């Protein structure tokens, strides 16, 4: 059976989501996408910089890759909603990653504002993927609001520190019926594999790939790690196997005695 998963009305087979930020050259983007097989990639929306003579980043992204515009730059729900609407108007599809950040020091997301934006955008027909601080009670609210998946952070954006929120993320994976996509902080393929072994539906890796000396090979390395982690999860690998029946039965021996 093919191991596919669905977000909104799109099916994915590759569980590595990538981002377009911080590449030394945009030319690496299509090569990285090809090497990794990533089927979803994030983009951001900004005011055009007239001095820089920038090119359209969308022209570097093959048509079969799903665009996931983010709302980076938004500091509250209203700004996130505005950015989402502009992105959709630009023909980017219905997917939106909501990112509301007030904290310029650690770039931690604001769950409350993110939730408000989720509620509004779901009603407007978006497929909403909120980027959140892992928090069990918020996750339920995001589910109720109609989010299509949840993107909890592993650690601070760009920190490469790995899944420092592991305990909470494994609770989310256990408790949520939505796909959990670990976003932010994954700096090494081994960390991506760890997230997948835990049962994450996918991971999103941007900086670690784009800032590598060889981003194309890095993309492939992450993709293989994600596959390995996913396969380990599916193989249902167990911990230590305890011994079977023991000779004496202190707790259940009474059952036999009474016969």
């Amino acid at each position, binding site marked *: 059976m093919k191991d596919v998963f669905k977000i909104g009305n799109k099916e994915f087979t590759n569980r590595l989501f990538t981002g377009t930020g911080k590449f030394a050259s945009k030319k690496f983007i299509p090569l990285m996408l090809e090497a990794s097989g990533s089927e979803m990639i994030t983009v951001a929306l900004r005011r055009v910089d007239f001095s820089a003579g920038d090119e359209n980043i969308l022209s570097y992204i093959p048509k079969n890759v799903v665009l996931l515009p983010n709302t980076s730059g938004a500091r509250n729900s209203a700004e996130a909603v505005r950015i989402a609407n502009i992105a959709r108007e630009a023909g980017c599809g219905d997917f939106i990653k909501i990112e509301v950040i007030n904290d310029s020091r650690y770039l931690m997301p604001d769950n409350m504002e993110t939730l408000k934006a989720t509620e509004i955008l779901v009603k407007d027909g978006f497929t909403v993927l909120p980027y959140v601080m892992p928090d069990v009670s918020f996750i339920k609210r995001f589910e109720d609001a109609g989010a299509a998946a949840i993107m909890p952070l592993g650690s601070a954006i760009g920190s490469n520190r790995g899944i420092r929120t592991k305990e909470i993320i494994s609770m989310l994976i256990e*408790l949520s019926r939505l796909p959990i996509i670990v976003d932010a902080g994954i700096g090494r393929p081994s960390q991506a594999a760890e997230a997948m072994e835990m049962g994450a539906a996918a991971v999103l890796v941007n900086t670690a790939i784009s800032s590598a000396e060889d981003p194309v090979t890095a993309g492939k390395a992450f993709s293989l790690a994600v596959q390995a982690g996913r396969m380990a999860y599916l193989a249902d690998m167990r911990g230590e196997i305890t011994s079977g029946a023991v000779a004496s039965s202190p707790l259940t021996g009474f059952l036999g005695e009474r016969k």
Partner: protein
Amino acid sequence: MSFYDTIKEFKDFDYDAFFRRVSDDQVKSAIAKDRLNIKDFLTLLSPRAADFIEPMAQKARKLTKQYFGNVIGLYIPIYLSNYCTNECIYCGFNCKNKINRRKLSLEEIEIEAKAIKKTGMQHILFLTGEAPGYTTPEYMGEAAKILEKYFASVSMEVYPMDVDDYKFLRSKGVDGLTVYQETYNEDTYKKVHLSGRKANYLYRLDSPERGCMAGFRYVNIGPLYGLAEKRSEAFLAGLHADYLDRKYPDVELNISLPRINEAEGGYKPASIMTDEDYVQFITAYRLFMPRVGINLSTRETPEFRDHLLDICVTRFSAGSRTDVGGYAEEGSTAQFEISDARTVPEIVHMLEKKGLQPVFKDWEQPF
């Protein structure tokens, strides 16, 4: 979405085929896992896993100590009325049974409450048959108000209601709801509930969820073992608890495993749940849901109950009578025969000897 979606999903599931394929290694690794999926859970309910009952019990004991410590919550039932319009062929209160019917007046409830209060019990569970004409939600609300004066926590096991009625009773101080599905097997359900409101399978199936929506603090569910094939019943009850637990994290879920006892109607169980099955099922529940409360009533014998306390039971009834008005005087016909007739002090003494602390009151309504 309702738990009925899950019921439909497993309606034609071939349990026997699944059980035939279960290997010893699968059982061992299900026991070893930290977090069991539903396949692991069903594996532990398989006949094959019966050979591993001791390691299951060891793990269940460990988890119970880890999450509940050494305390056992005690509760006591009070029967308010045995009027019933249902025709449940296994029940002593079946409307076709010619028994002495009685409903306690509010004054009588107060007298019973005083008599029970003397035992030291603080958690009370009131029960009625299903006769909304006799035992209206308003009557229960009045009863709850009286019981609340005497007890720290009032739960109820009554006929299924709409959310609004549950909310009303919640507002009168009822904090726990018990609704047993009796059987998750829809066909069997129809065969054993011949008439009355209870013949509606779906309405009953969804009532624990309505209770969760109404904001009860405790919700207690379970099938009545003996009506339909036991392993599938145990499995679906576990999935039901898991479904509610995930969807309503603010509610404390409890599971009971009542099995058919000699009641007035002389019903003979269609599927016998042995003591071995009982132990296997409660340990499987504990491994699957480490934090779920597991109730044990006085339907079971003292010896059996005491052994289960060593494994994974967390709530225990004591000093129970199942007849209407039975605490203050000799009452009417019992709903079922109790097997453990020990008094509250005897139970407390037994628990203390085991190193367990009896808890009469683990919380109180703040206002």
